[in-house]
């Protein structure tokens, strides 16, 4: 079983960290990336081994291996239909795997229904109970456990304070704004002190300002509580800014797992390069001329410098002003690539030929993967 978990990280450079809390030998399990901010215990919170979830012929989740450490802020990133939400639902227990095993804190959870998993979910549409006021919503889990009214209301009020909504207990879900409902959903999950908190695109319905604010707050809250967060999003900026580690999903499979830096700077496949950070993908033939290796390579737009005396000739085919930067579309041979230049730099005219260049170490080989 443990071997299976190890497999997940075999293509990553193993990292060891000096800041781990519980160096308990039996639990030691190396995993890749993402140990910059906090130290994690070596306990595995959630592990998937060869998990598949097929709906008829649709392979929503296909042979996924995954391990999430206790206390980690883990993001599942991917386009819609990529299998990330199904993975979350598999952890919550709303779906059952058609093959493979899922463990939560070392316990196999096949045959364990959602209501017996010490895991709570913040739903995309918040799913607040419309017939209850806020305090009863938050106290719902405790009520089900049979906790007395005074006690559970006290706990619920505490949770509401935690999410900065003290005194909102008497209102109805319909009277709150989207951001407030989102916080209530968070409080309702956290009050049960789950071992793992699952968040299904929780910021998707909020406007940009509020979303940025909530990203900060969620991050702070997770640090404070030390609960394992598993966060599903299609927004790469959100995943990169919040998570300790990111798994990029496509077509039911994990394309790459790693720290945000890994994912962004060293995409290992064309899909990841495209989806995260809109990296340029260079053709193998071109890359061979540069490096001698025939392989796809990724090159971030902001690494490209325009107007260098020496470099590669490219034709400008368009530009868009993005505020802080300008995106310049370039034809390099028969490839079409984008460059990001500072807004104060002069933008070359369409149709002109420019010289472009980049530092050699900005080019990342992706192996043969297209």
């Amino acid at each position: 079983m443990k071997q299976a978990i190890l497999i997940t990280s075999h293509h990553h450079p193993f990292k060891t960290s000096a800041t781990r809390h519980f160096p308990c030998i039996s639990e030691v399990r190396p995993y890749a990336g993402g140990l910059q901010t906090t130290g994690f215990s070596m306990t595995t919170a959630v592990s998937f081994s060869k998990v598949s979830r097929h709906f008829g012929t649709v392979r929503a989740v296909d042979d996924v291996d995954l391990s999430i450490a206790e206390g980690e802020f883990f993001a599942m990133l991917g386009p819609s239909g990529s299998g990330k939400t199904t993975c979350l639902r598999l952890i919550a227990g709303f779906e059952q795997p058609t093959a493979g095993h899922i463990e939560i804190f070392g316990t196999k959870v096949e045959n364990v229904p959602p209501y017996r998993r010490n895991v709570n979910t913040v739903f995309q549409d918040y799913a607040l109970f419309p017939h209850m006021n806020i305090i009863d919503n938050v106290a719902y889990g405790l009520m089900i456990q049979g906790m007395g009214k005074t006690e559970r209301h006290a706990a619920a009020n505490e949770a509401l304070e935690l999410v900065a909504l003290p005194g909102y207990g008497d209102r109805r879900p319909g009277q709150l704004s989207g951001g407030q409902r989102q916080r209530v959903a968070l409080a309702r999950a956290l009050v049960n002190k789950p071992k793992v908190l699952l968040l299904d695109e929780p910021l998707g319905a909020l406007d940009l300002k509020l979303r940025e604010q909530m990203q900060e707050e969620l991050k702070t809250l997770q640090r404070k509580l030390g609960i394992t967060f598993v966060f599903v999003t299609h927004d790469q900026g959100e995943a990169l800014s919040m998570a300790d580690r990111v798994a990029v999903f496509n077509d039911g499979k994990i394309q790459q797992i790693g720290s945000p830096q890994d994912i962004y700077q060293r995409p290992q496949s064309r899909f990841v390069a495209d989806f995260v950070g809109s990296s340029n993908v260079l053709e193998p033939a071109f890359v061979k001329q540069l490096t001698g290796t025939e392989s796809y390579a990724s090159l971030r737009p902001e690494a490209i410098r325009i107007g260098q005396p020496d470099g590669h000739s490219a034709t400008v085919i368009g530009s868009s002003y993005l505020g802080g930067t300008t995106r310049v579309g370039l034809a390099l041979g028969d490839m079409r690539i984008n460059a990001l230049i500072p807004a104060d730099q002069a933008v070359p005219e369409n149709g002109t030929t420019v010289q472009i260049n980049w530092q050699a170490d900005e080019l990342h080989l992706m192996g043969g993967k297209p």
Partner: protein
Amino acid sequence: MTVPSPVNATNQSSAVLPGQGGWTGSLSDKFWRNPKLLLILMLTPPALWLGIIYLGSLFALLAQSFFSIDEFSGMVQYELTLKTYGELFRPANLDIIIRTVSMAAIVTVGAACVAFPIAYFAARYARGKWKALFYIGVMLPLWSSYLVKIYAWKLILAKEGILNWIFAKLHLTWLLEAWLAIPIIGGYSLSVSYTGTFLVFLYVWLPFMVLPVQAALERVPGSYLEASGDLGATPSQTFRHVIFPLALPGIVAGSIFTFSLTLGDYIIPQIIGSSRLFIGQAVYAQQGTAGNIPLAAAFTVVPIVIMGFYLWGAKRMGAFDAI
């Protein structure tokens, strides 16, 4: 194994909580493991009820239409035959079918004409309080007692009733008499004429037409009408080329009700109208006084077949989205 108290169940050490115990807990676990079990448990009672009581009776009835009645003994002969269906094509019986279908068609057209302005007004102009009022205004007659509605028309159409009184007050009695003098649709008085039957059918089924037409019209964005007007169409052109085609599925949906209900009704023509039979009355008479269950069953197949074709056509016109 001891079951920990519920409050302790949330402590940090357990990722999986123990079962809640009791039969509800274990049954609930079973439902989760096997969702089909719950589905089957939920579906069994209604499926049994409707399947056995309703469909069973229906098939038993249809089966009888393939039997025939012995003309001398009056006993049902349990041999499969199409003889009973052949009887439907006797002139007297054919008359009944044609009469009923014609009435259903006319009632449907009439209901569409009367319902359209109500539905159009409610969908496009009524707002807030008025909208609710219109809605209740249609729902109340829809749901109020069928017999009372017929009874009210018996009062209205009676010789000494309010309609004759109004015509007399307006000095229009000659008009009413001229109308009643017209063959077929006329008669001795309104309450024993086809006109009377038509009026009551129209009245009783009208709400069934208003609601689907209104639902269809609610889905026509106001901007379509503005666009049509903007492109130079007169209101009548807009109606013909934009509103009516878009409302048509709703009208067809409503017509399913008015048509089907008229086909099967036997009480209205019995109370208001001439003594000539409609399909419903024929069924009632055959199974009751005549004791000819096979013929009664064969008669019930007529509206089923007509409605089958009607529904098939309506479905192709997208009427089911408007119900």
